[in-house]
């Protein structure tokens, strides 16, 4: 929130994605996030610029964590500030929705059944990684 505060902002909307203990009815022990970091940063920047072009917002900030995260950890934090609440909500929703389809970050879940890459809504079994 601090990143987007300003005297002209009257509304700050935030979103935090946290690691859930279940997904599609299965238990989750922990998650690992992998990213194409440089592209993820530039895609996210593009998304924020698109939001700033469509809605009157005074600031936006985003941070995605990578690597291993435990249940309850925050994986993604977004904040949008605006003079009024409607553009803050709409821009925030746009950023998270676009992020979920465009920003190159991948999630791998580990639970009692093993480890699965998450690709959209389906579970895909992970192959053992051959030695490099």
């Amino acid at each position, binding site marked *: 929130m601090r990143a987007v505060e300003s005297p002209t902002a009257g509304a700050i909307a935030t979103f935090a*994605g946290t690691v859930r203990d279940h997904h599609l009815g299965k238990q989750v022990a922990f998650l690992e996030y992998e990213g194409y970091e440089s*592209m*993820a940063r*530039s895609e996210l920047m593009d998304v924020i610029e698109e939001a700033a072009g469509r809605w009157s917002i005074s600031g936006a900030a985003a941070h995605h964590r990578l690597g291993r995260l435990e249940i309850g950890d925050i994986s993604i934090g977004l904040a949008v500030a605006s003079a009024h609440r409607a553009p803050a909500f709409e821009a925030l929703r746009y950023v998270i929705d676009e992020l979920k389809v465009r920003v190159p*970050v*991948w999630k791998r879940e580990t639970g009692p059944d093993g480890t699965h890459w998450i*690709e959209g809504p389906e579970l895909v079994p992970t*192959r053992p990684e*051959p030695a490099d």
Partner: protein
Amino acid sequence: MRIRVLLFARAREAYGKPEAALRFDQPATPAACFEQLCVEAPRLEALRPSLLVAVNERYAEWEQELLADDEVAFIPPVSGG
């Protein structure tokens, strides 16, 4: 012409390595890069319908013509957030 190729997530696992350095004597495309990787790791082939391509950190077409030292990435369906 050298092309750097990056693989992520399930594609990285299928290939067995996170990147590859390819050489082409003639004009190349991401599709041509992918074919070369499949020679090395045939199980990559099955992933192709789900993959997107990026060139120099921008989403791009499979048939886009590459320039020397371009960075090509194969991108499984993303699941950040």
